[in-house]
């Protein structure tokens, strides 16, 4: 069942480049750089798969984009704002424009499914009546209509993943960053979630999906950002299998 209006109103991004990275390097502590000289531009409304072997730095690159850490060197611009010099007070405003699906879900175990998904709306000060209208609609749409009052420890990995996705998209972000969002769900749900991302993308959300799922990459055929040896290359869509 598709909701009449699954997501609350959104801002249309005015910037042409949603994310701009210039010679970005990242190291943890005193170790070697795991990301080296990364330069890229994500245009508004684009859809990209982020690929690379395990340990190639996909999650690290995403974490730079959702402002969980600052690069060791180089410059990152988010929505036209220099993120490397962004003040602490500015961070929430920018983060509210970004939806993130974490590989390890990062749900709050003491909150119900409803309250977890409502979190981005609550922190943004959305009225409870609005929250009560939109969140159940979205949860029904991602197949969690029966588990709204359940807490994450009572749910399967796939269900948690769908909560994480619902939380990431509930406020219709300008940028959606998803780290292996279909890793714990069956093919049918994976397809359904991909259609949700595509629908969001059609509405203007820029989407980056980090994944190992080659059949999915082939099936949906979006351009790829590929990490290898710490560097980033831009590749065209992977050809569908004959």
């Amino acid at each position: 069942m598709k909701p009449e209006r699954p997501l609350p109103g959104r801002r249309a991004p005015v910037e042409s480049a949603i994310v701009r990275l210039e010679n970005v390097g990242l190291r943890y502590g005193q170790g070697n750089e795991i990301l080296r000289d990364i330069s890229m531009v994500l245009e508004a409304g684009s859809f990209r798969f982020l690929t690379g072997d395990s340990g190639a730095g996909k999650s690290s690159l995403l974490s730079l984009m959702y402002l969980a850490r600052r690069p060791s060197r180089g410059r990152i611009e988010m929505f036209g704002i220099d993120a490397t010099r962004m003040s602490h007070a500015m961070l929430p405003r920018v983060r509210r424009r970004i939806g993130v699906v974490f590989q390890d879900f990062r749900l709050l175990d003491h909150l119900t499914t409803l309250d977890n998904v409502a979190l981005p709306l609550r922190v943004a000060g959305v009225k409870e009546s609005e929250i009560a209208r939109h969140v159940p609609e979205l949860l029904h749409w991602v197949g969690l209509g029966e588990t709204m009052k359940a807490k994450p420890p009572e749910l399967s990995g796939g269900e948690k993943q769908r909560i994480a996705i619902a939380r990431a998209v509930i406020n219709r972000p300008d940028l959606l960053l998803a780290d292996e969002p279909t890793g714990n769900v069956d093919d049918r749900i994976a397809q359904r979630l991909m259609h949700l991302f595509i629908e969001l993308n059609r509405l203007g959300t820029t989407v980056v999906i980090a994944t190992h799922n080659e059949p999915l990459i082939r099936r949906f055929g979006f351009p790829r950002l590929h990490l290898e040896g710490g560097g980033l290359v831009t590749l065209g869509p992977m050809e569908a299998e004959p």
Partner: protein
Amino acid sequence: MIRFRRRADLPFDHDATAAFLPAMIAMMVFLATLALSGALVLDNLLSRWNRDIKGTLTVQVLPAESDPSSKLTRERVEKAVRILEETPGVTQVRPLSAQELAALIEPWLGDSGLVADLPLPRLIDVTISEDSPPSLEGLAARLKKAVPGASVDDHRIWLARVVRLADGLEMLAKAVMVLVTLAAAAAVVFATRAGLSIHRQSIEILHLVGARDGYIGRQYALRALTLGGGGAAAGFALAAPVLLGLGAMAKTLEGGLLAEIGLSPAHWAILAAVPVAAALLAMASAFLTVLGTLSRML
């Protein structure tokens, strides 16, 4: 329509500080209430004593021996009055009449003619300047030298020493209040920092979905208000019977110098503000601690 239950976004229910904070605040409020009540009682006594010391004093002139006509005694009283009037800082001197003296001791000896026949000491009411009072010790020495049998009512001299001691005790009670307040604030800061450390991962999630530090701070502040308020109420509930008991014991000592030693309704109103202030202090300390700590996070 599905109803959302508003609750803290952070898992405070499993937080070890839930037991620590109310117990600490209860102890602090208990001590602060006792210290403040001590300060209030002392302040009350001090103002009364200071009023007595500053306002008036009494000079006593013993009746002269072998003076059936009381002429010699009258001369001594007149001389004492002259000395008093010449003393800087003395604004008014009034010897008590024989009738006034009789009225003073009437409660003990009754209204019989016996009082008039007794060789009673003569009393002189002296009003002194509050701004520049005379030295009581100096005045007493001068009178004693010039007028045989004259003395300044020396309980006032003693009272001046007691006032100095009480002043010190009041300062001590206030110092205890300040220390207890600082200790309570430190306990809240410690508990809040521990809570921030325990819930670090949840706070990171809140940050990543766009929560401002104030949003997280308000959750800690509300929790500190709730826990601190409960502890404060318990501490006050423990202190109140102690104060009532002490008040009842003090009542048995009242009279003379120790009049009005108990707590008035106004004092109780001030004391009732202690738990409220403690809860608000806990809330403000928690909020500011969260803001200070989170401002250093990304």
